[in-house]
């Protein structure tokens, strides 16, 4: 079992709901201060978006963040360099599209993630069927590959994904891209179904925009992922203390 999953199981088994915010790498010069602020305010793990020119699974907020980051020259390497300096005990999870890793080299990417302190990765356009080579490289580097389950996943696929995902299972609450709609949708149903076939921690994401929604979703799962709502704060010029306040509100709601 990957270090990430050991850690996330510990959190769950201690009775704590996990809070996982998402940041776009390099959105501003002080972006790692924002990550540190979130950790200080009680984030249990942090998702780090590596910008890609064609983010097929993302709505307007994260698209805008990716464009801005790309505009200021952010690369996979620069994001990794920044994160290596962050030096935190809280797990960091990369999230990007497969072409970034494909272009950088599969084995080289997995090694780079590990050496930069990233212990998990989400690649939304890498389907389970296309993933074996990638997963093998991550396996060799103690990097957990996290898969999503969608409301449209058939029972057979759900089972396959629940048994293949590492670290946690990402229950996508809605048939939507990030930030385009809100509410916990089918999260509860999906989590229940995953729990019937696997003991992996299960977090709900896609559509969690308010502390109230986070409270409801974490009540039926092991944690929540908050992306676009937080990125919007940063697009609007939010500071590290704004991030702390934002995360603090979510923390209190789910505890």
């Amino acid at each position, binding site marked *: 079992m990957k270090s990430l999953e050991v850690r996330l199981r510990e959190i769950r088994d201690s009775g704590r709901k996990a809070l996982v915010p998402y940041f776009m790498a390099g959105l501003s010069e002080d972006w790692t201060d924002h990550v540190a602020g979130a950790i200080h305010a009680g984030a249990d793990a942090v998702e780090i978006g590596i910008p*890609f*020119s*064609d*983010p*097929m*699974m*993302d*709505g*307007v907020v994260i*698209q805008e963040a990716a*464009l801005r980051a*790309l505009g200021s020259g952010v*690369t*996979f390497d620069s994001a990794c360099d920044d994160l290596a300096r962050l030096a935190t005990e809280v797990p960091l999870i990369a999230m990007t*599209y*497969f*072409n*970034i890793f*494909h*272009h*950088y080299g599969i084995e080289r990417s997995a090694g780079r993630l590990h050496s930069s302190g990233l212990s998990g990765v989400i690649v*939304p*356009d*890498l*389907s*389970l*069927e*296309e993933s074996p080579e990638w997963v093998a490289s991550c396996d060799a580097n103690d990097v957990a590959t996290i*898969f*999503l*389950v*969608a*409301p*449209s*996943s*058939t029972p057979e*696929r759900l089972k396959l*994904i629940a048994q293949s995902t590492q670290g946690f299972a990402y229950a*996508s609450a809605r*048939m*939507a*891209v990030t930030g*385009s*709609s809100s509410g916990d949708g089918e999260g509860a149903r999906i989590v229940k179904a995953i729990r019937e076939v696997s003991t992996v921690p299960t977090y709900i994401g896609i559509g969690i925009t308010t502390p109230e929604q986070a409270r409801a979703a974490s009540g039926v799962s092991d944690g929540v992922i908050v992306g676009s709502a937080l990125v919007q704060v940063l697009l609007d010029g939010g500071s590290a203390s704004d991030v702390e306040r934002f995360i603090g509100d979510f923390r209190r709601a789910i505890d």
Partner: protein
Amino acid sequence: MSDSARYMAKPDERGRFGEFGGQFVPEALIPACQELEVAFVEAWADTEFVGEYRQVLHEFAGRPTPVTPLHRLSEHLGLSVFAKREDLAHTGSHKINNVIGQTLLTKRMGKHRVIAETGAGQHGVATATAAARLGLACTVYMGEVDTLRQSLNVFRMELLGATVVPVVSGSRTLKDAVNEAMREWVSCVSDTHYCLGSVMGPHPFPWMVREFQSIIGIEAAQQLRDLGVDPPDAVIACVGGGSNAAGVFAGFANTAARLIGVEAAGGSAVGTGSPGVLHGMRSLLIQDEFGQIEEAHSISAGLDYPGIGPEHAYLADAGRAEYHAIADHDVIEALRLLSELEGIIPALETAHAVAWMTKEAGQSLRSGSTVLLNLSGRGDKDVAQVRAILRGEQ
């Protein structure tokens, strides 16, 4: 059986042509892609479905399209050139072949709405047309930049009852329209089919679209045989995503004919691209040193795509087909040449194929060789742009 019998057969069970293709889409769309594959395989083996597809193409879209010997151009170039006249198909290009197939399949799957991406608007107009004919709701995603460049096509789609959504993300052109259509598909996949416009995207699209376009090559091979040409020395088609080329190549892949795809120099995925993953497929893409996809730039919006269909990447890799690039400045001249010598104003996309043939006549196309030119579309949509260029306004 010779090696060549393998060409343009089914992709493997992972949806791959050699190393290219596959199904790189979010989990939310995997069930829809799998459902589509099953539905297509069943429909394509069902003589009733195939019969209906052929009948609609015949009585609605004007198939079979003729093969026209281009006498004056042939004399001018020292070649023997035949044109497969997709410009005479309804809506003015080969795009109708694919959308008739996909919209019939949409109904068969019990879905009542289609969405589509479009660049110049040709595929959007064709989709809106087929949707109107079959009583399906239709929404077309089009980059905002393209809606301004091709405002008449926006109006055409609206006349046909479709809704056109300008896409304001990214570079606001074709690749972003594909992204947006994919995003939208995630939210409406239960009742909506994504009618992709070329031999690209996740499996089964590249294969399915090639099959629906293969009618071009099947017809042309027979028509040429009737004219005593079996096979021609070369088959030439322009390539954006590669659907008209795949369709015509399919009739000749297992003959001795040279297969030649002509890309726009500013969108030459085979010439300047490298392997990558975009829009659900592993193929050749134009990208920077970090794997960020670059914008294509061409005089013709229909070739403004930074990738190429995975089967073409495979055919290039295997050495079965060759791909060349033509720069914008040669395209207008080719368009004028065909117009003046043959009375056919080709689409700017098609003019790329004409331009390459003109350049290579007497060179790699030896004097006297027989050439099949796939005349993918008519130029009416482009005349305002061409006029502006000839007047020095652009």
